[in-house]
């Protein structure tokens, strides 16, 4: 009896497989429209959404096969379409491309200035909900229209989107901007009080070809873009959040005849909120390790007293940047540091009271900044190549 059973099993299994076969939900690679960058703008006349999708043009992409490359043609193709909503626009694109957009490999989403000003709350939902979208996709805001950012043909990369991603992902070198992906943006949107960020990007016309750079960060209040932060202000925020990876601190040399240029090696920051008899104080303690990478004065700074003075000056610079950012945030009446969240975590009950009028309480916050900077290396030179004045 076992014999029959086994034969039945095989035969009918096979029939079932054949009956069900046919690719269930699979899509061949060559009929995929691989999207690597998306731009969202408001259409000038109808006010609907203009979606620009940057699609990989496989023939020109120049893969491994022999005669690929063909320098002339662009390896990408910017398709745009207009729709009532982003998803509607994405589907309308198929009139031009013939295949649904494949957004799993989308690297970056750029929102036009007009869309950002109107408020991203309405536009972000598609990017969080679509199962093909990755939460690690980066968000940027264009100072003008997103579509002309997408056209800037980069020198080194084949695709503009990849170029923009590279610009943002390597923020660590200067810490003048900060990588914001969908999840981070969603976190900030969800917290009523703290501000959301997104790197700004603009086009600079040098000669006939355009190239893009990041002038600073855009700041959002409840999803609406309300202002911009310059590089130093952004770094001020990053100091507090402890997200500064590296960068340059320029400090006037103690003898006033030049500058000492310090590279930031390592930063740790601790923020402790404290409510003392009605006053909200944030104790910010920053430990930073710097290395002397350049000096323009003749006097040798690489001495113990020299280091002492320079460290002190560096501490002042950090304090200035933080205060500048704090002033800017008070000007915008916006909690860009996320102090509200920190208070909420520590003082649960008081936070319930303050939560509603946090915008007017925020300016009354006092910052007790304490910067402890240490110069850890002066690289190759023990003293600058200048004639020896007086003792060592």
């Amino acid at each position, binding site marked *: 009896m076992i014999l029959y059973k086994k034969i039945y099993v095989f035969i009918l299994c096979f029939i*079932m497989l054949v009956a*069900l076969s046919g690719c*269930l*939900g699979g899509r061949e690679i060559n009929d995929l429209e691989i999207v690597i960058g998306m731009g969202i703008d408001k259409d000038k006349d109808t006010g609907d959404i203009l979606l620009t999708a940057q699609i990989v043009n496989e023939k020109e992409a120049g893969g491994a096969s022999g005669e690929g490359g063909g320098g002339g043609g662009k390896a990408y193709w910017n398709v745009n379409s207009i729709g009532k909503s982003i998803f509607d626009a994405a589907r309308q694109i198929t009139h031009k491309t013939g295949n649904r957009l494949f957004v799993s490999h989308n690297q970056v989403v750029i929102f036009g200035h007009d869309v950002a000003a109107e408020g991203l709350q309405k536009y972000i939902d598609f990017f*969080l909900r679509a*199962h*093909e979208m*990755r*939460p*690690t996709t980066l968000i940027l805001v264009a100072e003008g229209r997103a579509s002309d950012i997408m056209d800037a043909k980069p020198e080194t990369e084949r695709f503009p989107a990849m170029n923009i991603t590279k610009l943002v992902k390597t923020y660590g070198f200067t810490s003048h901007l900060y990588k914001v992906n969908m*999840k981070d943006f*969603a*976190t900030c949107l*969800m*917290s009523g009080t703290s501000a959301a960020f997104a790197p700004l990007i603009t086009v600079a016309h040098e000669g006939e070809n355009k190239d893009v750079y990041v002038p600073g960060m855009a700041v959002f209040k409840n999803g609406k873009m309300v202002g911009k932060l310059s590089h130093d202000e952004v770094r001020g925020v990053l100091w507090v959040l402890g997200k500064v990876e590296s960068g340059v601190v320029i400090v006037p040399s103690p003898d006033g005849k030049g500058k000492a240029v310090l590279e930031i090696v390592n930063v740790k920051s601790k923020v402790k909120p404290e409510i003392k008899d009605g006053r909200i104080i944030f104790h910010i303690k920053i430990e930073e390790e710097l290395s002397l990478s350049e000096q323009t004065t003749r006097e040798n700074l690489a001495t113990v007293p020299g280091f002492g003075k320079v460290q002190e000056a560096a501490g002042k610079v950090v304090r200035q940047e933080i205060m500048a950012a704090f002033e800017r945030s008070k000007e915008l009446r916006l909690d860009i540091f996320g102090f509200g969240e*920190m208070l*909420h*975590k*520590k003082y*649960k009950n008081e936070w319930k009271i303050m939560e509603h009028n946090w915008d007017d309480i925020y300016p009354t916050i006092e910052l007790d900044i304490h910067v402890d900077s240490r110069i850890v290396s002066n690289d190759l030179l023990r003293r600058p190549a200048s004639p020896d004045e007086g003792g060592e």
Partner: protein
Amino acid sequence: MSIEKGKISGRQLMFMFAGFIQGSALLIDFTVGITEHQTWMVILAGLIVTIPFILSYAALAKRFPGNDLVRINDMVYGRFIGKALSLYYIFFLSMTLSFNILDVGELYVNFLMPDTPFFFLLSVFAAVIAYAVYKGIEALAKVSHLFVATSLFVTISTSLLLVDQMDFTRFQPLFELPFIKLLQGIHIMSIIPFGETIAFLMIMEHMNDTKGPARYSFFGVLVGAASLLIVSVRNTAVLGRTQTIWTSPSFQSIRLIDIGTVLTRMDFLIGIAQTMLIFFKCSIFLYALTTALSQLFGLKSYKPLVLPVAGIEVIIAATVFQSPVDHAEITQNAGIIYSAPLIYVLPPLTLLIAKIRGLPKIERSKGK
């Protein structure tokens, strides 16, 4: 006489418990909607609440060696009430099995392979579970430690890969939730992963160990709970406040892994581990269901019932809920309330009555 003298060692039973509980790692997403960043507390509380009951299951199995729940019910409650309680137990098993098959369907339709026909997924999955149960419980027992090993490896490796995105201050405002929400969270958690181990009452009889399954089931549950804890801690630490907006936070946190150009898109690999675990859980449920049914009908072997029961379960799974939202809403309210008496009241009551009436009669002399 137990139908089939299978041989399961104590250690294998422990791994089966652990694998069973890890199988519901995706199910903790139900409670996240309610308990937000205190999910890990709820898991602990759920564990502590259900431990005594799990031990009562083991005590029952020890007291009636070689008998499963259906026969125990008959002995303790007599024919009619016993049969009614067994029917209640079978109803619970079939409903929970269809929920789990539905979960796999939803996991694949929502996340991994969006445009595959839903019914095809369910029926093929049910066919494979039927094959597993057809092979007998020893095959599952022998392979259980492999499932547990893969699950632990996956859970720990994903947590390590996400360490740099973790921010442990996101747990901060502890006990912020109103008590009623915590209670609901604990109630769900103690039923869904831990309470469901009542299915093991149909399996513990195959234990060849004389010392009784209590020790093994306890450690198995601990290992399973530890794995769930790691998952929920990882989710909260990585997603923080956004945890409540995603349909499946544990899946979303895995999609955030972004190290180098290679280790970025791991969601399908985690999908594989998750499918294996739910497969393991479903086959244990199907085995318990078919054995219970065959006991009820007084059959000699459960094997002929496997395929028809699997067929019914697929149809139930496809039609029981209209949408994932409906699924979540019913499970969080009606689902846990209807199964509460079965998991919490019945076993201790059976144990108590058995003690009072000095059952099991047969070995009365050398009993206790």
